[in-house]
């Protein structure tokens, strides 16, 4: 069976950057948005390591803010290099998705 984890990792990173670029947000909210857009089986535990990775690469930064539910939450902001990474992801995704769609639409002659 196709191993979706590699494809998911890169794709999710781009989508998370996009969501954070639109508004300052936190892990659970990002997960809800991703699920809402059709990413099935996404949990906070799936995206949390990606957020740690994006933060380490300085594509996002975070700060703790008080939460109405329990302890303070970590809110994420996009950085300048994060915007650049998002732009290059968008451009690459457009070109690759066209190519993949063409290939997948091929039929056996």
């Amino acid at each position, binding site marked *: 069976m196709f191993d979706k984890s590699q494809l998911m990792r890169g794709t999710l990173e781009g989508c998370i950057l996009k969501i954070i670029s639109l508004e300052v947000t936190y*892990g*659970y909210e990002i*997960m809800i948005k991703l699920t809402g857009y059709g990413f099935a089986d996404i*949990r*906070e*535990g*799936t995206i*949390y*390591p*990606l957020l*740690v*990775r994006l933060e*380490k690469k300085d594509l996002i930064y975070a700060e*703790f803010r008080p*939460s109405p*539910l*329990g*302890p*303070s*939450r*970590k809110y994420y902001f996009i950085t300048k290099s994060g915007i650049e990474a998002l732009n290059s992801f968008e451009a690459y995704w457009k070109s690759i998705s066209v190519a993949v769609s063409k290939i997948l639409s091929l039929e056996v002659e």
Partner: protein
Amino acid sequence: MANRLEKLRKENNVQDKQLSKENNVIMTDMVCYLRSSDLCEYDIEIIRKELTGMAMEAQLRNEKFNDVAGDDYKALCDELMKNGRQKTLYEKALEILYVLIYGIGTLYLIEILFSSTIINIFKSGQFSISITSGFLVSTFFTVVIAVSVYNYFTKNSFEFSNHNRKTQIIFIIGFSAAWTALLLIKVFVGKTVLWSVNCLYPTLFLAIAFVLIKTLDDQHVNSLFKNK
């Protein structure tokens, strides 16, 4: 200088108490396992704070922790280890020196308290201590065993929690064998006096070394907080 990492650790300990028993066990396993990694201490505590927050919010939404974190906690920790910031060479050196000075210092004080040295100090004002080969060898092995036990325990925290028979047996046999060997070394090898020294000199040296390393560590940790 107050170490802000210790403050954060205390805050996390307080938060842990608000978790359900089930979630507390999971968090303990995860944090134990993360401590076996090369992740820097600061990042481990930040990750701990966030994971505890996730677990608490899940509790408040009447969800289970695995609903938000997934079923494979070890895999989640592995992902975090892969993606988090690793310890720098400087941080590793400080950690090793801290363990060595703390371990040797503790064993040295035990040696003073449980040998004739303490009696001589109070009876005749003699501060001389005999450093034997047994003391040096047993101190070295005690530190090695303590570090090995810590590493084995943290690396296998999930297996211990799941009462994995094989892991428990390896641990018990290894632990017993190491301590038996240590006792035998202490009893049979350790009578040769290498040199005698005023016991206050090594105490002073170890105390200064401890304060120095602790100060350097505090400065470094606090600088990490400032840069965030």
